[in-house]
C-alpha cells in the first residue's frame, strides 16, 4: 500500500523562505537553497515550494556570503533540484505552458496551479496532454464563510464565491492529478487541521488529497492521517520545532500510520 506522505511546504518570497500567517504576515526565515539542503538531509518524502513573491524579484540575499544572486524562479528550481533527490512540486504565479516547460525541465516533478484556473480551467487539459495528469497539483485556498467553504484566489485575497465542493469536482473532471487543500483561516494558527472540510472533500473525488493549514503539534498529523488523506502538509511547524520531521515520523509510526 502506498504510504502517507509527510510534506513540508516552503513559501518563497523574493528568494527567501518565509513563515506565513493567515496568508498575510510573512516572516523571513532564510535562504531557499540552504533550506533545501537541510530538507534533503532529513530525507523528507516530498517538498512543496510555493512562490508568493508579488514583485517576482529573486534576490537570495547571498551577496553577503560572496555568492551571486538568482534572477528567476527557474534558476532557484535548478539549484534546489541539484540538492534534492526527492519529489519536488512548484507553484505560484504559473500562467503559461512555457513556464510549465521551464519548471519541469529545471527539475520539478509536479507543478501547482491555482489562480489561473478561475480564468482558464482548460489550462489543466493543456498541461495534462503534454505531461500527464499525474504532474498537475491543483492548489485550493478556502475560507469558511457563513458555514460554507468558499474558494479564494490570488494568494487568498480575492473571493471567487465558488463553493469548494463544486470546485474540487470540476478540477478533477478537467484532469487534475492531485489536490492541495489549504485552509486560510488556519494558516499559521496551530489550531489543528480542518478535518470536517477535508473529509467532505475526500468523499467527492478520486484523486489524492494533500491537506495543509493549522498543524500545531504532531498529534494533528495523526488525526489527519487517520482520516485517510494521501499527503499531510505543514509549513511553520517544521521551521520552528527542533528535529521536527524525524520526531513527527516517529509518532506516526508509533500510531501505526503507514509512513516511510
Amino acid at each position, binding site marked *: *500500500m*502506498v*504510504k*502517507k*506522505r509527510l510534506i513540508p511546504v516552503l513559501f518563497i518570497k523574493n528568494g527567501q523562505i518565509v513563515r506565513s500567517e493567515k496568508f498575510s504576515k510573512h516572516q523571513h526565515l532564510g535562504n531557499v537553497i540552504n533550506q533545501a539542503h537541510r530538507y534533503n538531509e532529513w*530525507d523528507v*518524502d*516530498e517538498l512543496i515550494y510555493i512562490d508568493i513573491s508579488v514583485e517576482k524579484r529573486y534576490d537570495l540575499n547571498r551577496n553577503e556570503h560572496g555568492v551571486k544572486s538568482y534572477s528567476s524562479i527557474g534558476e532557484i528550481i*535548478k539549484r534546489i*533540484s*541539484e540538492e534534492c*533527490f*526527492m*519529489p519536488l512540486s512548484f507553484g505560484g504565479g504559473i500562467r503559461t505552458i512555457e513556464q510549465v*516547460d521551464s519548471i*519541469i*525541465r*529545471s*527539475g520539478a*516533478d*509536479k507543478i501547482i496551479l491555482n489562480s489561473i484556473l478561475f480564468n482558464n480551467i482548460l489550462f489543466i487539459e493543456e498541461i*495534462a*496532454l*503534454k*505531461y*500527464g*495528469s*499525474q*504532474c498537475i497539483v491543483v492548489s485550493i485556498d478556502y475560507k469558511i464563510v457563513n458555514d460554507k467553504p468558499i474558494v479564494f484566489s490570488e494568494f487568498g485575497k480575492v473571493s471567487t464565491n465558488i463553493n469548494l465542493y463544486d470546485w474540487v469536482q470540476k478540477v478533477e473532471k478537467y484532469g487534475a*492529478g*492531485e489536490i492541495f487543500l489549504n485552509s486560510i483561516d488556519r494558516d499559521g494558527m496551530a489550531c489543528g487541521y480542518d478535518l470536517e472540510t477535508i473529509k467532505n472533500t475526500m468523499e467527492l473525488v*478520486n*484523486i*489524492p488529497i494533500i491537506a495543509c493549514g493549522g498543524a500545531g503539534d504532531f498529534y494533528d498529523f495523526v488525526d489527519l492521517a487517520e482520516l485517510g488523506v*494521501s*499527503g499531510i502538509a505543514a509549513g511553520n511547524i517544521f521551521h520552528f520545532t527542533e528535529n521536527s520531521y524525524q520526531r513527527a515520523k516517529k509518532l506516526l509510526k508509533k500510531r501505526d500510520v503507514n509512513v*516511510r
Partner: protein
Amino acid sequence: MKDDKNLIGIIDYGGSNLKSVFNAFNKLNIVCEICDDYSKLDKYDKLILPGVGAFELASKQLKANGFFNKIIDKVNSGTPILGICLGMQLLLNSSEEYGYSKGMGLIDGEVKSFKNIGVNPHIHMGWNDIKITNNSNILGEGNETYYFVHGYYCDIKEQEFVAAKVHHGLSFDVAYERNNIFAVQFHPEKSQKNGLSLLKKFANL
C-alpha cells in the same frame, strides 16, 4: 566499471525530468550527457529513457525527433537501456493513455489505466514498498521503498523477466530486466538513497 568507455546518454525528446536524472548521476560522480540529437546516440554506451509526460505525445515526439527507431536498433544490438516511469511504459507494445498508441515493443506488454479498472485514487502517488519477484542486477536485496507517480500501469506478458511488483489497488509490474533491457516504473532519481544506489548499479553494469 568494466572498462573506461562507459558514457551514459540521457535521451531528451522534449519535456521531461531529464535534469533530475542528470543531477543524480552528477551527485554520484558518474559522467553522463543529455542528448537531443538521435544521430549522436552512437557515442553512448548506455542509454536512459526518462519520463514525466503523456504516452501519446512522448511517442510522437520520439518519432519526430528520429529517436524511436534509433533506440530500437541500438537496444537490439546490445546497448543497455534503463527506462524510467513513462520511459519504461514507452518500451512496451502499446498504451491506453488518450486512446491507443504504440510503443517500441521492446517489452511484450501493455500499459493500462487505473481509472478504467476503478482503482481509487486512480493516480498512484507516493512512496511504496516493492516486492522483488526475480533476481535483479540493479535492485537491492530487500523489499525497498521507492517513489511513484503515475496514472497508468504496465501489464507485462513475460512474467519471468519481471523483477518487482507493487500493490496499489492491484498488484502490477514495476521493474523489468532482460539481458540489456532494464525498466522501472518508480523514479530512482527521486527515491533518495535507494534510487541513487540503483542508478549507480546500472552505471557500473
